[in-house]
């Protein structure tokens, strides 16, 4: 019935079919990763963050001095209304206590990262735990947890953080971290729960149930992983907010009380503002650093969100 098809034509068809279909085994994440790498926004954001990370991790190697040491050559020239600028060995000059400002800026990356990461991670962890509980168990647990987050969400984040700091009898670096973290708990919890609930109704979870997959496995293998993307995006954006909130708390005099700690928010909110007229760099440098890092995280978060958005797939 059909006329013969020559071998080389047949091969050609197979070739063409092979060419038009994708190479196998590309997971969604890899796919998103590829799209991320093609996105200039992501590259800018990523580069900023990478730089920041490198500086933070290798601070002791990069920094010329110990960030909390007071140097006689600086203190000698230091008075309450004049702070020495750049001198030999101190490229950015002194801070208000005769410490090396450049080193403090560099170590600041580390400390700021520490605050941002911990505040985000703690908030994420608790939030994810609560959200997962609510989303997985549902019923009154869900009801109770959600009313709780309602209460927390009813307060503006910074106000909640202020209150928490004020209510903490002792203020330490951790007070700030925890306060900023707790502010984020309801956001993460809501986010995760919402998407878990959506997952719960979804066909693929139903399919897993129909397979007789154990409930725990359904939650851990299907509901959580698929819900986490939203949380990851939020977490990236939260870094920026956490750093800004910490700075705001410092400005209000409620931040980390240990001014030996070189943290950009602290440096800006305390020294930067107080000695603005004496030496504006004390404010400009940390502020710029904060803006840059916050920008980096925001750019990265937004582009991850974009990359993960199924609308943009292919």
């Amino acid at each position, binding site marked *: 019935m059909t006329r013969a098809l020559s071998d080389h034509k047949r091969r050609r068809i197979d070739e063409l079919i092979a060419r038009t279909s994708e190479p196998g085994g590309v997971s969604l994440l890899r796919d998103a990763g590829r799209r991320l790498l093609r996105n200039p926004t992501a590259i800018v954001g990523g580069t900023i963050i990478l730089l920041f990370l490198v500086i933070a991790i290798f601070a002791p190697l990069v920094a010329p001095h110990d960030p909390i040491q007071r140097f006689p050559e600086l203190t000698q020239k230091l008075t*309450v209304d004049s702070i020495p600028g750049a001198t030999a060995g101190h490229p950015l000059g002194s801070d208000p206590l005769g410490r090396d400002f450049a080193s403090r800026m560099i170590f600041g990356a580390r400390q700021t990262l520490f605050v941002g990461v911990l505040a985000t991670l703690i908030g994420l962890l608790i939030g994810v735990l609560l959200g997962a509980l609510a989303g997985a168990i549902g019923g009154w647990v869900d009801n109770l947890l959600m009313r709780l987050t309602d209460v927390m969400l009813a307060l503006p984040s910074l106000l909640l953080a202020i209150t928490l700091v004020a209510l903490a009898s002792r203020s330490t670096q951790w007070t700030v971290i925890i306060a900023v973290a707790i502010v984020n708990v309801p956001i993460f919890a809501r986010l995760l729960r919402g998407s878990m609930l959506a997952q719960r109704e979804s066909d693929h979870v139903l399919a897993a149930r129909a397979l007789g997959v154990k409930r725990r496995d359904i939650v851990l293998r299907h509901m959580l992983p698929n819900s986490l993307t939203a949380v990851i995006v939020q977490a990236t954006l939260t870094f920026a907010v956490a750093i800004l909130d910490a700075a705001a708390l410092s400005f209000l005099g409620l931040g980390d009380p240990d001014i030996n700690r070189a943290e950009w928010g602290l440096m800006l909110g305390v020294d930067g503002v107080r000695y*603005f007229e004496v030496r504006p760099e004390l404010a400009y440098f940390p502020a710029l650093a904060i803006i840059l890092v916050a920008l980096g995280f925001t750019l990265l978060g937004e582009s991850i969100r974009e990359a993960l958005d199924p609308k943009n797939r292919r």
Partner: protein
Amino acid sequence: AESDRDNGGGEGSASGGTFIFAGAGDPKNFDPIFNDDGESFRPIRQMYDTLITHKPGTAELTGGLAESWENDASGKVWTFKLRQGVKFHDGSPLDAAAVCANFDRWFNMKGEAAQSQMIYYQDVFGGFAGSKDAVYDNCKAQDASTAVVTMTRYKGAFPGAFTLTAFSIASPTAMKQYDSDTVTQNGDSFSYSAFANEHPTGTGAFTFGGWNKATGEITLNKNADYWGDKAKVDKMIIKIIKDENTRKQELRAGTVQAIDYPAPADRKALADEGYKVLDRPAFNILYLGINQKNPKLKDLRVRQAIAYALNRAQLVQTKGPGGAAVADEFLPNTVLGYAQDVQKYEYNVDKAKQLLSEAGATGLTLNFYYPTEVTRPYMPNPQEIFTVLANDLQAAGIKVNGVPRPWNGGFKDDVQQFGKQDLHILGWTGDYNDPGNFVGTFFGRGKVEFGDQAMTEMFDAIGKADATVDQAAKKTAFEQVNRDLAAKWLPAVPIWHAPPALATTKNVEGLVPSPLTAEEFNTVSVTK
């Protein structure tokens, strides 16, 4: 609106214009006896007078409402010769009866609520009617212009304490009319009377014009009938601006003519720009408290090591406000009993280390409490001061564990109530020129703050000095106390005397800074 913005500078010589002063905090109310803080006292001082007062710019006593005063030999009876023809703002006359009415009011104040708010009274007069500790006995109007106040015992605080703004003389008529004694508890705080809030009535150079809480402005009007130097301006506004930075900016913008407590860092810039920066003569003290509850700190050598370890000269240079000086004693040199020859602890790390090892206290770790969320006139930036001091101590081999506590949210409690600290920083601004007001307050009795309740030798010495009626003897006694404090007892290390400043625009004349931060504004004029 009738805009007064433009006559802020006071253009015409016919009218004295308006003087706008930026204060740093809200007053509580205007009933002198219920207040204990400088921001409340600032307006109160303008509206009221005390029996005795200070010569402008000094801590020396001079006649106030009383032209003269006398103390009998026992030291218990005080006779005040009152100024003639002085009238309260409500027109009622100031006479001996009115003075006694004030004393009796304080003594007989009813209710725990009200009593608990009479902090200075409690401190100076020991207690109220019925209390065995009460110092006050009675007040008699010998004649219209002679009031005789009798005490139950002699107290070194007098006559200095009569200058306290809290003991200003208020109009008995007004107090009665406006129910001054009702203090009611509501929730965690108290409500005060209409007298305290809306009708403060004294004899001062200014009368009360109103307190606009929405804008934070207290208006005071010139009292044309004032007995002393009448105010040069027609009106004075105390504008409350809490942020030191904003105060400075308002001064620059010309919207206020004077500000209190310019930030130490801004002094130079302001002076360079032509503003007048007025230093108050130092009348305060910042000290590093040592808690002898810690057995290691009971050893004098350790305490001395701490004193040697501190580079106070450098602290003063790098962080001290203009006019600050290293303190060797707990009282400024203008106060009676200041000794010229106390043991000084010059910065000497080696000496400190040596003393520590002698005492077997190497590797010492100390909890150093410091306040946050606060600035005090003697301590413009506790965190920085702590950091520098801690740094010095570390250099001498003492490990410091910094414990920050919010001023009202734990610091005062932990330090003064529970004594949790090993070291802490705190200070004091003098109320009147009396050594008892300094050393007596700190070391006159056992306090949790310094741990040791059994330094009886010190308590006795100070108690005895304080009870000495003869001024010369008292001076000698307190000089010895100061020498011993430095060499023998060392319950704390005095750090610095740091006078808080004022700044005004060029056209403000006649503002005399007071060591007690008790400026009177009737002498102020604003020229074009």
